[in-house]
């Protein structure tokens, strides 16, 4: 079964030895909300800033948590809005099964023109 956001939060919290209440306190959220997030039962959509705080407290990757929450970071949305061809480009990447590593390899190396 694919990992859910709740699984990820619980796993990271356990790895850091944080209790539910301690983690909630560091996030400035109630333990009930964190508990519902871990159980994938929180109905209120998560704000990006909440996920950023989650990543900080759990020492985890922000983008991974965003994707698990089914969200696209605002800075990525801005990039896509700037170029209307990007969504179709991303779809094509998906169809052709290209990985980010493969695409990065095609980009000019830093420092070279």
């Amino acid at each position, binding site marked *: 079964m694919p990992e859910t956001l709740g699984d990820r939060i619980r796993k990271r919290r356990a790895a850091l030895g944080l209790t539910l209440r301690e983690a909630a306190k560091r996030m400035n959220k109630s333990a009930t909300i964190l*508990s519902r997030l871990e159980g994938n039962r929180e109905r209120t959509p998560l704000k990006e800033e909440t996920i950023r705080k989650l990543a900080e407290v759990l020492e985890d990757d922000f983008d991974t948590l965003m994707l698990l929450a089914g969200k696209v970071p605002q800075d990525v949305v801005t990039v896509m809005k700037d170029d209307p061809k990007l969504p179709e480009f991303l779809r094509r990447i998906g169809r052709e099964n290209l990985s980010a590593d493969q695409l990065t390899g095609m980009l000019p190396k830093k420092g070279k023109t």
Partner: protein
Amino acid sequence: MLTKLQVPFLKSAQIESSVIDLLRRYSKWKGSVPRPPIDIEDITEHHLGVVFEIDDLTQWLPFSDVLGAAWFEDNVIRVDSSLEGKEGRLFFTLAHEIGHWWLHRPIVEMEKVTLPLFSRDKNAKPTPTVVCRTSQNKERAEVQADLFAARLLMPESDVRATVKKVCGANLPVIEGMRKRLDARQFDGQLRDYAAEIMREGNFTNVSKEAMGYRLVDLKLVLDKAEHEHQPRLV
């Protein structure tokens, strides 16, 4: 379907030794002797590997007076979100559920071996094994879990050491305490004494009521009438 938890009679000393057993195992796992406040969340989640959740239990159960419940088969303990912010009651409820886990889960497991019909259907909705309703707090399993919780959060040796530090050899004597407790009125002087012991002994995760009853249980506070009628050594 919710079934009533049938448990055998346990002597007070048996519950005490179960608590000591859990604390000893936790101490070995942690690498240090647990001292108050006993980290019941750490024991639950990280030592026992039980999932601890705080949620609105009315969404899970058809009762409005449930403070905690244990789903043995799913390895989950849930405490009602109404207790969030009331640390003493929240931790006592969690410790109470751990009491069920430690004392009663082996009994349920044994029943599953001898009664295969007890097993849950693969497609059935998960149901809790233990539901702790405030209206049922006099049932044997509930009383045992309460005793377990009190002894786990307020270990006898730590409470005694703190009382000795605070009171020396002179235990406090409160007039009419027993009568008020029997009438389910928590004594004001007992509350103050409990607060002092909590402060001095770092029992920060229990309520004054819980500490008061623990002090009474350990006979570390005396009722004036009982004190006067105690047989004296000559």
